[in-house]
């Protein structure tokens, strides 16, 4: 019974965090995409925030939200929802931004020709265009939220520890006690919820979202029942008029000159406050600089190495089904559907929930948990890559497959000249998200507690978790250096590859 209550609590938190994420992501993405000046700081900002490991948000959650709630349940709940929010929001915001940035030019000309005002454009052009990206990213956000639930419902900094009733706490408590039965039961409940959502919601939404893709390929136009119900209810309650009325009211309000001045000065004041806070934070960081910073660099190195090995394993796991899909057009659409359902479910299971018992045994007999850690990294990254690559492979146009068949382009030649180039853009997109997932997972992959015993390997993840209680200041240094490193890696390695993919292997004109 308490397990079902825990499930209910967790679900409720996830739902609230998700709604907040959407409410944040859509305006944020729109704002970032609609002005070069805003784009320059808004995009790097979420790029950084998405690279920050979840434990870095613990102090914020505690210092701000728990204190805001006076240390009571409400405050802790808010902190937890905030932590889940940090797992869900960034990819949604990126998705909105990308949709607006890559919005088809000919449709834009249409909007220009009819001189449509900005709000009309958002309502009838941008929001529908966002749907395919938002559906996919919502699925990923929920999966990510479940994956990190174990770090969102139970968190601590220094000597302060907070926990809330929920599935994440259930998992951790069972792990600490070494209660395998309870652990399995909790996972069954979690997987059931995830499976239900995948089948009932995401799969039908994915089918529906095809309607909003900008092409005229024939599809079975499909609308899930629950979307119809929501529309019906919204219609009865005059929700649409109310919503757009409010938005329109706010829009005109915030465009008034005096309001603009007030908003700007508020933003300025907030900026000053943030600057002051930042100053205090820096002073706290450097006075005195904690011992042990030099440990961060080898830790980052070894974690990079582990993620790289996990990446190679993931590539093998992904390219084989990807190749199969690219060769079998007829059956592949159905198989890909099954695959994606499984991906949605599998990526939601916190690997760190079922790995500790295995690793516990591994340590006893192998004397090392290295292999186990690498496999947790695989579970954190492989699904993103697989999802993207499978969709890339299934959407290799019929005309190219026919070309290969007519001219008997097969085997290695097919892989080299058609398969790899055709999936390259999706492979890069998947790899970027996959690596991001792996960095975030470092805190659960390298450090865990099972049956009262700490299982850890040297690396940046275990460094952060260990110092979360032992030395929060050192933890902060670790988190900052790691974030800088990850952002640099993105800029220097992935961004150029992404640009190459966009330039040479872009979809569209085949």
């Amino acid at each position, binding site marked *: 019974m308490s397990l079902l209550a825990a499930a209910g609590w967790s679900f409720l938190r996830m739902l609230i965090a998700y709604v907040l994420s959407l409410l944040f992501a859509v305006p944020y993405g729109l704002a970032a995409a609609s002005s070069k000046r805003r784009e320059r700081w808004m995009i790097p900002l979420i790029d950084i925030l998405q690279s920050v490991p979840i434990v870095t948000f613990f102090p914020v959650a505690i210092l701000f939200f728990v204190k805001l709630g006076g240390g009571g349940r409400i405050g802790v709940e808010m902190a937890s929802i905030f932590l889940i929010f940090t797992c869900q929001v960034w990819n949604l915001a990126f998705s909105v931004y990308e949709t607006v940035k890559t919005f088809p030019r000919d449709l834009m000309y249409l909007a220009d020709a009819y001189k449509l005002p900005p709000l009309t454009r958002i309502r009838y052009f941008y929001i529908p265009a966002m749907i395919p990206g938002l559906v996919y990213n919502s699925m990923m956000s929920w999966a990510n939220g479940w994956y990190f639930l174990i770090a969102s419902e139970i968190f601590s900094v220094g000597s302060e520890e907070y926990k809330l009733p929920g599935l994440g706490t259930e998992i951790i408590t069972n792990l600490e006690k070494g209660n395998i039965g309870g652990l399995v039961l909790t996972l069954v409940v979690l997987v059931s919820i995830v499976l239900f959502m995948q089948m009932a919601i995401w799969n039908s939404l994915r089918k529906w979202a095809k309607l909003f893709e900008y092409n005229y390929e024939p599809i079975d136009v499909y609308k899930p029942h629950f979307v119809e119900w929501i529309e019906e209810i919204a219609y009865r309650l005059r929700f649409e008029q109310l919503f757009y009325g409010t938005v329109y009211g706010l829009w005109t309000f915030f465009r008034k000159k005096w309001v603009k001045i007030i908003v700007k000065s508020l933003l300025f004041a907030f900026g000053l406050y943030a600057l002051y806070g930042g100053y205090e934070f820096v002073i706290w960081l450097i006075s005195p600089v904690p011992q042990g910073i030099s440990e961060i660099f080898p830790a980052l190195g070894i974690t990079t190495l582990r993620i790289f090995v996990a990446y190679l394993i993931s590539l093998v796991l992904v390219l084989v089904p990807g190749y199969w899909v690219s060769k079998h057009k007829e059956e592949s659409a159905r198989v890909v559907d099954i695959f994606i359902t499984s991906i949605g479910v599998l990526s939601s299971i916190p690997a760190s929930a079922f790995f500790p018992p295995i690793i516990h045994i591994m340590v006893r007999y192998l004397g090392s948990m290295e292999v186990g850690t690498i496999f947790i990294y695989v579970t954190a990254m492989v699904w993103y890559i697989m999802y993207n690559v499978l969709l890339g492979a299934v959407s290799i146009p019929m005309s*190219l497959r026919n070309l290969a068949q007519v001219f008997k382009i097969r085997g290695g030649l097919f892989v080299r000249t058609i398969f790899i180039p055709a999936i390259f853009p999706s492979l890069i997109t998947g790899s970027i998200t996959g690596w991001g997932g792996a960095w975030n997972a470092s805190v659960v992959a390298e450090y865990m507690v099972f049956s009262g015993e700490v299982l850890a390997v040297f690396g940046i993840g275990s460094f952060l978790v260990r110092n979360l209680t032992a030395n929060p200041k050192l933890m902060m240094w670790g988190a900052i250096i790691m974030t800088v490193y990850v952002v640099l890696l993105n800029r220097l390695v992935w961004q150029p590859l992404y640009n190459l993919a966009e330039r040479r292997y872009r979809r569209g004109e085949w």
Partner: protein
Amino acid sequence: MVSGRKSCILRAENISKVVEEKGKKFVIFDSVSFEIREGEIVSILGPTGSGKTSILNMVVGLEKPTAGEIFYRGEPLDSEKHIVPLIPQQPISLPWLTVQGNIEVVLEAKGIPLRQRIRTALKYIDLMGLDSFEDTYPRELTLAMRQRLSFARALSVEEELIAMDDPFTTLDSLTAEDLREEFLRLWLEKQLVVKSILLTTTNVEEAVYFSDRVYVLSRRPGRLLDIVDVNMPHPRDKDSKEFADIMDHIYSVLLSL
């Protein structure tokens, strides 16, 4: 009707295509027979929906007939073994390979060694008027140039038969006329290794202008209405009485249903 001695490259015997969709059966075309002999240009002429593309897909090995059979040089057509290069209606190319790369890849698939690949690719690039575009990517080319690339690629594998799926409709009429003239000139001057051509078209004039023989198909389901031999020497004068008579005949066959 059949030009005696020359040997037959491809023969289709009573081929049909039936597809099933949501429990209903649709006949795309029904018991169509045709043959292509060495040295011939043969066209399959019919309105949209007569199953022309489907027939061509069977010839190049992308589809299989529901009934009937296709023979290549007397043996059943085997899509794993026989190569019949296709020039599709819309130009298709690998966007990440250059013009030359796009041709070399099909030569590599045929197992031709590197140096010969380059030589052959350049030869056909030249023949199709793509010289100086070797290193250009398809997306930088106009539609007409991309269609020329399709021609060059199909011709470069130097098989005895190529299939063209209405390759001129995608171009504007002036450009199409240029490409038609140029291709016919290469064909008549015997600069090409290819021996025979199977062409589908919706354009009566084009069929009569090119072909030695025209197979006329009806609207869906496609059935063979008539086989028209065109025994005029090339280049054919479109304003001649003979040309007009043949066209009139074909129109009357098409409109008789």
